[in-house]
């Protein structure tokens, strides 16, 4: 589907979502509660068939987190970005999408390690890069390296 067709399809099927555009991809902004059902439908519907999660990351906007999913389809070759906003900075939590794409396991481990966003129902959530002893989450904007460095 082209960018416009994809947008039209999503507007019909997910009327509560918001839409944006970047220079590269169409963007869907989804509520936290709807995330899993939206992604599942994008993965399973034969007309969208997003079978490839090629990037998953997060951005810290100081008042909120954004978790960003870059999706693609190996049959139709269309791309889509799905964003979900997390307002809770103290205990950010989100449903894991490991059940839909296995690629999410390492991506979510990395986001948990560097942003401190906890993923529910993740098969093995751990601090994959820095280790359990590390204090703080480096990619947050309020992180300072005054924390004690443990070798």
């Amino acid at each position, binding site marked *: 589907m082209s960018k416009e067709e994809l947008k039209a399809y999503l507007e019909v099927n997910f009327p509560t979502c918001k839409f944006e555009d970047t220079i590269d991809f169409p963007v869907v902004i989804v509520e936290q509660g709807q995330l899993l059902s939206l992604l599942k439908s994008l993965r399973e519907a034969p007309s969208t068939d997003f079978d490839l999660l090629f990037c998953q990351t997060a951005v810290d906007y100081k008042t909120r987190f954004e978790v960003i999913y870059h999706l693609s389809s190996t049959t139709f070759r269309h791309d889509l970005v799905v964003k979900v906003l997390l307002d809770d900075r103290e205990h950010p939590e989100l449903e894991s999408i490991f059940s839909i794409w296995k690629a999410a396991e390492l991506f979510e481990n990395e986001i948990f390690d560097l942003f401190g966003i906890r993923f529910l129902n993740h098969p093995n959530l751990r601090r994959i*890069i820095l280790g359990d002893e590390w204090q703080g989450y480096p990619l947050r904007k309020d992180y300072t390296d005054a924390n004690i460095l443990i070798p």
Partner: protein
Amino acid sequence: MEIPKQLIPLEDTPGEFVINVGPQHPSTHGVLHLRIKLDGEKILEIEPHLGYIHRGIEKISESLGYRQSIYLTSRMDYLSAHMNNQACSLLVEKGLQIEVPDRAKAIRILMVELQRLASHQLWWGSAGLDMGAVSPFFFAFREREQILEIFEETCGTRLTMNYITPGGVMNDLHPDFVKKVKALIKQFKVNIHEYDKLLTGNIIFQKRTQNVGFLPRDLAISLGASGPVARASGISCDIRKLHPYDGYEKLDFSEIVMDKGDSFTRYLVRIEEMKQSMHIIDQLIDNIPEGDYRARVKGIIRLPEGEYYQRVETARGELGVFVVSDGNKTPYRIKYRTPNFSNLGALQYIAKDSKIGDLVAIMATLDLIIPDIDR
């Protein structure tokens, strides 16, 4: 001593035990730490532990300008330094809508394909070494050395080139470049048959890699694998074909896709890719357009507010650069989606239920570069 909770718990089942491979194991080609749960010789579970060379490149880049952060990318996948630089440069050019001169585009493709050759040659040598064949290593370094010499003449360095910059390339080509590349390609077309004699047709190598380490197509897609690893499982995923950049659309080359998905197929894909790279270089080396080698770009780059994503095909797969810009001279957030990070995810599925001895063969054909995983 209390066992930290991220480790696989040691269970008291007879026959099952946990071993550590790395972080200093020769077959990991860097500091990768694998905790492996075994039943006798059979692998039950693999848990990768990363971060031994985590330098926080994404965090550092948030306080560096767009030009400066490109220098760090040469240190991610150090065997694909040109491609990493190219990805960042293309992203900046897209954001500022800079038209790159034709000469610069041709030089970029030549450099990138030479880099792909050098990277696959090193992989070929070390793959042989991993399986106990020492001579391939010396044969591989014979050619790779020539390519690095060519790089050194034009770019000034052999490994961390930083040659491709926003707007074009850093310097013009060295006067001997064309002559040396032609001689190199002519020689390598003869020498690549030695590669076949030494390893491809070697019965010991074949027995070690054939029907070992299967990666099925569906699983490879679900894991987000890319590059030769995915193409050996029948997925067409060459970014040079799917989303052409820098003039790849004008060149004649084919994407190597094979569908068996075992270690030996991953080996064959890379051997064929070397031939395609030489084919690309052949088309360009006599047709480098005259003109500028760099477009004029301001010293301090400010990308317009927004989000940008640029992908290129490195020697190991798809490298994606994701930038969130707030209009300042430093990126607000930069994320490198590196091919090795996603390909590492495949390891635990490929190696499950195979013998511990085959792990080395599987890791050799996955061709993991650890600094690219850790960043």
